[in-house]
């Protein structure tokens, strides 16, 4: 099960709970095995198995809760970004900030979190993300852009509230 570790990581990010993540991964493998005949050779296998995991999550209690509380305008036109004011310092790469970024990621709405993880961590192409999330590529792009912006804002807020070292 070579992709086991990454599916598990993704599941943890979705559920925020290791036990639930384990259940989710187990369910995913069971469903993948049972539904392997529904996989069309030549199509993207990774997108297929991630889609199974994500659908299992969305129908779980945690998933339903997470998506029920999310505002619906996630994919609207991204507002003009306050670009020029951002400096390279605004997102720091220091190790101490990693936890801060993780905290900020945790607090993003699921729709933002999953698209960020698929793009940055799983390094999926827009095409693959589109297949995994069953949304058009245009939506992948606008959602990614909004997710990144939301993360920037969240990180900056956290940096601002941190006592200066």
């Amino acid at each position: 099960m070579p992709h086991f570790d990454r599916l598990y990581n993704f599941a943890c990010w979705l559920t925020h709970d290791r036990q639930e993540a384990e259940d989710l991964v187990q369910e995913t493998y069971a469903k993948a095995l049972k539904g392997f005949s529904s996989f069309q050779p030549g199509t993207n296998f990774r997108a297929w198995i991630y889609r199974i995991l994500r659908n299992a999550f969305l129908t779980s209690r945690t998933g339903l809760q997470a998506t029920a509380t999310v505002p619906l305008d996630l994919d609207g036109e991204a507002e003009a970004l306050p670009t020029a004011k951002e400096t390279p310092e605004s997102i720091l790469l220091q190790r101490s900030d990693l936890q801060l970024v993780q905290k900020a990621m945790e607090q993003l709405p699921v729709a933002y979190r999953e698209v960020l993880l698929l793009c940055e961590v799983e390094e999926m192409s827009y095409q693959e993300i589109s297949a995994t999330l069953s949304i058009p590529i245009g939506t992948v792009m606008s959602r990614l852009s909004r997710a990144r912006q939301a993360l920037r804002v969240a990180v900056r807020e956290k940096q601002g509230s941190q006592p200066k070292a």
Partner: protein
Amino acid sequence: MACDRWIEKLDAYLDGELPASEARALSEHLRGCSACAAESLSRLQQKRTVQTAGQRFTPDPAFRVRIQESIAARPSARRSWFRLPVLATAMALVVVITLFFALNRSRRSEQQLVSELADLHVATLASSNPVDVVSSDRHTVKPWFAGRIPFTFNLPELQDSPFVLVGAKVSYLNQAPGAELIFRVRQHQISVFIFQERAVGNLQTRDSVQTALSFNVRSWSLNGLRYFVIGDASAQDLDKLSDLMKAAG
């Protein structure tokens, strides 16, 4: 403001999803615009940070074993003769997953390598000083590299071929120096890159024929060196030049 138009495309650019022509135009803009370059750097850093921050959870080894057992044990609830095909399917699934990811990974790094070479080739074509040593004489070009790159190679005799050696320059791939030779055939320019295998990494070890950004690419290994032939000339021309280079070895 004109920059807004570029900023909109920055994410797709950094994700490697912008069409080649637009990506070239954008990187051109980034070279001249410090505000956009700073924004680009900031977003790239964010990408990297999220990538690192996102790799956070590793499964318990006991859980892995449990899953493996549950997959294997699943059909035992049914009649035992049913077990074999299901096990076989499970194993086939595992093999498919492994193969898929192995292939995908190597294809991706291979594509990255080839598009990097395509960039180098295009940069050479676009440059006002495309070569550092201008000579069609292989006995001038080869010695020119002595002391400039940490290896040596042979150049083919081109007298009875349609190819003309235009010149050469030192090129870099993954921070390692190598040779870039520029040949002309009719109106087409072809770059031949020669790097040490370790500069290329063990990512691409097989001979390959492919196209990148509609350039034709040929690649092979010889005596610890990795050769790449890239250009917009026809596939036959590239094959011919490759054969000449191989013969000169």
